[in-house]
């Protein structure tokens, strides 16, 4: 009997969702018929809500403007890395088969500007958007925000502006998410700046995103670095007001300027290292950081604005709060691009989709409350639009923060940002490859009871054996090897390995010093 009981239960569990579903949905799913509509294939890491709402809105928009509906066929192989691999595989196979590039996919949408600017465009996977320049300039009058490109804006050698290959559709910013409840328990003031995440009380309680996985997280760390450099520059200018008033080109010629900037860089790297020492983990999941803060598993972390805000709303602002660090918010665009090899009718539809995304109607869809006029039907998407002019009227908006204001007061510097590609492997070496020795050294240092000694040891730990000049040399060498066409991959692996070794030796030395101090105190 028991055997039959289990079998009956099995059938019941199997059938239950089907039965309940039939009861819950009163009207049968009326799937829009594809007949007589144009089709667009889009590869995207965007979530289901975003995909659904924009497919619906584009269909309506297309019908209104061109008298015919549009069906979007989404492809979702996962995150940006998976999309990149899918596209690379496709184009490589085409090359091998000796075919002309013909994309099965028309559009890549979402994944961050780094993905489009550093991965897709240089690999030749994008074609110029070819949308009406008037549409672009109406949507995004200024090509940059706080030094960050909002669309693919570059000039060729003769100074002509090249046709853009991608354009930002919405904005995302990284900031600090923290638990007011835990901060109160620890008796710490609420974090305001990136540097507040280096507090030793936070050891093992800071949730960080993996800089080697997410381009936009890495940009956030780059902001920490640039903030420290800008501070050093400001200090220098205070002492040398005559340089500050000189034209920018003359700065680096001024005595001591470069040294001051290098000091700032070194300080920034130290600050980041202490954040890494506090890190609970380096995750590649965007939602994990606010989630862990909301259950009190992490006291603070680095998170994308809209994930943090939605978590804050759903669990209450006593458990999760999001702050944009003063004058150092990393705001980046989330773009769309048309893939290489798309032609004819499909190219036309693809361009219409891009123009639709830039329209005020689609821009408001990102931020309007669900159910409001022109807003999403089911759930709010809650991402800041990239069109500055739609911020004028914020009726029915889910969030009213204005990134265009938050970005004020700080500019990324192109010349500092240029270091990005060469600094990132250093983070990988110092934070990830050296992780276990960093953690154990940090624990040993924190075990030292005497406060001045401990503070000195922490400062020593942050004093990484690397200078900005090393990075410049590294960069020069990389360029040389690339120019010579040698095996750059092997060189990169080797150099990361060498740096990791150096950093581990540094951590071990600090740990030894801490151990000695602890023993001396006990004696």
């Amino acid at each position: 009997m028991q055997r039959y009981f289990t079998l009956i239960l099995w059938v019941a569990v199997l059938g239950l969702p089907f039965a309940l579903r039939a009861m819950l949905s009163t009207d049968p799913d009326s799937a829009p018929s594809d007949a007589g509509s144009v089709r667009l294939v889009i590869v995207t890491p965007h979530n289901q809500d975003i995909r659904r709402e924009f497919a619906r809105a584009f269909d309506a928009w297309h019908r209104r403007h061109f008298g015919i509906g549009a069906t979007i066929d989404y492809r979702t192989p996962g995150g940006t890395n998976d999309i990149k691999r899918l596209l690379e595989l496709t184009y490589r196979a085409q090359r091998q088969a000796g075919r002309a590039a013909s994309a099965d996919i028309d559009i890549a949408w979402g994944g961050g500007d780094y993905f489009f600017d550093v991965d897709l465009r240089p690999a030749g996977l994008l074609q110029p958007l070819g949308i009406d320049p008037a549409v672009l300039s109406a949507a995004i009058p200024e090509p940059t925000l706080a030094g960050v490109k909002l669309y693919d804006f570059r000039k060729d050698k003769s100074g002509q502006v090249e046709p853009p290959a991608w354009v930002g559709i919405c904005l995302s910013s990284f900031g600090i998410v923290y638990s007011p409840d835990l901060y109160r328990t620890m008796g710490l003031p609420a974090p305001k700046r990136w540097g507040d995440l280096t507090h030793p009380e936070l050891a093992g309680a800071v949730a960080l995103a993996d800089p080697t996985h997410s381009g936009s997280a890495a940009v956030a760390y780059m902001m920490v670095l640039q903030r420290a450099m800008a501070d050093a520059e400001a200090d220098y200018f205070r002492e040398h007001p005559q340089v500050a008033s000189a034209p920018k080109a003359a700065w680096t010629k001024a005595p001591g300027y470069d040294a001051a900037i290098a000091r700032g860089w070194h300080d920034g790297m130290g600050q980041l290292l202490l954040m890494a020492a506090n890190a609970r983990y380096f995750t590649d999941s965007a939602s994990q950081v606010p989630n862990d803060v909301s259950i009190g598993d992490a006291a603070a972390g680095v998170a994308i604005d809209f994930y943090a805000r939605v978590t804050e709303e759903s669990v209450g602002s006593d458990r999760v709060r999001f702050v944009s660090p003063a004058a150092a918010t990393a705001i980046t665009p989330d773009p769309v691009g048309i893939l290489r090899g798309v032609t004819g009718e499909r190219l036309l539809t693809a361009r219409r989709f891009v123009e639709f995304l830039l329209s005020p109607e689609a821009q408001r869809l990102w931020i309007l409350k669900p159910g409001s006029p022109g807003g999403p039907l089911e759930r709010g998407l809650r991402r800041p639009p990239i069109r500055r002019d739609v911020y004028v009227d914020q009726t029915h908006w889910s969030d009213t923060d204005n990134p265009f204001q938050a970005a004020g007061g700080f500019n990324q510097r192109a010349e500092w940002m240029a270091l990005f590609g060469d600094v990132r492997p250093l983070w990988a070496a110092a934070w990830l490859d050296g992780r276990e020795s960093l953690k154990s050294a940090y624990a040993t240092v924190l075990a030292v009871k005497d406060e001045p000694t401990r503070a000195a040891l922490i400062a020593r730990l942050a004093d990484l054996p690397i200078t900005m000049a090393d990075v410049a040399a590294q960069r020069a060498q990389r360029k040389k090897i690339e120019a010579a066409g040698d095996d750059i991959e092997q060189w990169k692996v080797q150099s990361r390995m060498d740096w990791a070794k150096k950093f581990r030796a540094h951590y071990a030395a600090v740990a030894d010093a801490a151990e000695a101090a602890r023993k001396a105190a006990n004696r």
Partner: protein
Amino acid sequence: MTRTHPLPSGPPRRRLRWSALPWLGRATPAQALLAAGVLVFFALFLLWPIAQVVWTGLATKEGGFTTRYLAMVFRDPVLLAGLWNATWIALIVTALALALSLPLAVLGVRYDFFGRGLLSGLLLVPLVLPPFVGAIGMRLVFGRYGPLTQLFGLGGDLGFDWLGRMRVFGIILVEVLHLYPIMLLNLQAALANIDPAMEQAARNLGASRWTVFRRVTLPMIRPGLFAGCTLVLIWSFTELGTPLMFDYYTVTPVQVFKLITDVADNPTPYALVVVMLAASTVLYVIGKLLLGRGFDAATTKASTGRSAKRLSGWKSLAAAAPFLVVFAMAVLPHLSVILTSVSATGAWYKSILPADYTLDHFRQALLDDLVMGSIRNSLLYASAATAIALAVGLGVAVLVVRSRLPGRGLLDALAMLPLAVPGLVLAFGYLAISIHFKQLLGARAPIWLDVQEFPAALLIIAYAARRLPNVVRSAVAGLQQTPRDLELAGANLGAGKWRVLRRITLPLILANLVAGGLLAFAFSMLEVSDSLILAQKAAYYPITKAIWELSQRLGDGVHVASALGVWAMALLSLTILAANGLLGKRMGAIFRM
């Protein structure tokens, strides 16, 4: 009670010929054909996709062969430490899983006690933890302010940091509690297969219980022991999720994952995959040398039924206690998923149980248009994959155990490979093959090969290939414990090869096949990497991808995804319980001959 074998009905239709003897002597034409089929499967769906991806680690930019990246793996102290850590963690996990499962298996087979049937079935349930929400559930259990901290009244300013403090100890604990059912299933099947008369004979001859266990029982269940140990060993050697959760990056699988998903194009992880595959094979071969060699199954098949000793009173409860304790510990993450699915959003904070309950997440899950389709898809994919895995796995097992085919040991090791390959690598391999064919054949490419338009076929094959090791190990163990005499007798009486297979071999190893097939089905339903990467169109999403999609939803995502996870757990647990019940009944029928 001893009976003779039932005679096959009808007169012998054929004269006894050499080739009619099943699986005797050198490879027969039928075996050669079978071997060719199995090899084609391996080559097409295993070696080729792996090679597609791993080649990056062995190729120069110009496309030539190089070992320089392999050499770099061995020059990097961090990667070497990772290999070493992964190895010893896997060894300890295997030893502990064995230490946990063996007494439970013996207890469950030898004695009849309070709730035995249900308890031994329940012990297998921890296997079925849905991805993503399972990990989130586990993190909740071990949270600083999580239920454990509250229960024990621990914690200072920042609660009690279980994940940060336990580290390697935690990894081992979680892996043992997750993987012991694989060991248990194989041991139960092996114990059920042995002949109690042998143990009784030894007892009659004056051997103590311990001596009987050590000298008679253990050697006779060696095939099941080997199957369980190698599966757990390689699984834990290549386990990614658990060390990642404990923020422990210095183990090879995590290093491969972190490097493969690194935005910088880096050949090292692919070279590292080659090293990991080689290391897994070496581990497997060592295991085989220790446990799996030269097993002679001449007389181990039970000819009498085992009558479990009935325990009563406190003894009965005492026998049930270890089952309950292990189950309670192993099922904590599952419990956490269930509670998350009924907890109001954000209502589980600094408390043992959620403060506020709701059924709305289930409603949300039911209303989502991904969910119903994903349930149908997953059932279809997993059933088809299990069928394929059983067919191929049985073929491999027959060749490995019953043939004199040259290189059958290699075939055996090859069948374990899918367990050792990182999921991402195999998934990208299938993707590469699909795209390759599509470009090569253009419009003539068959639709089932085009993973972007119709991923179902490749998903089924991917699941089947990935779950092959479970089936192969079970079937091999079963065949090894089945005396060849029984098959020979059938053949002698004139049964053809098919008839022998159908009427004698299959019924005799049914317990093992059910055990292997069950694992294949359950794990196919829960397969992650292939599902995420190959199922690119919403209409073909399996449950795991639907869970992932739901968990990405803002606000209540984790809760709604947990609701779907709860349903999957319920169905798979019942599958296991039902099969376990069926198995118990059938075992009795088969072995009392």
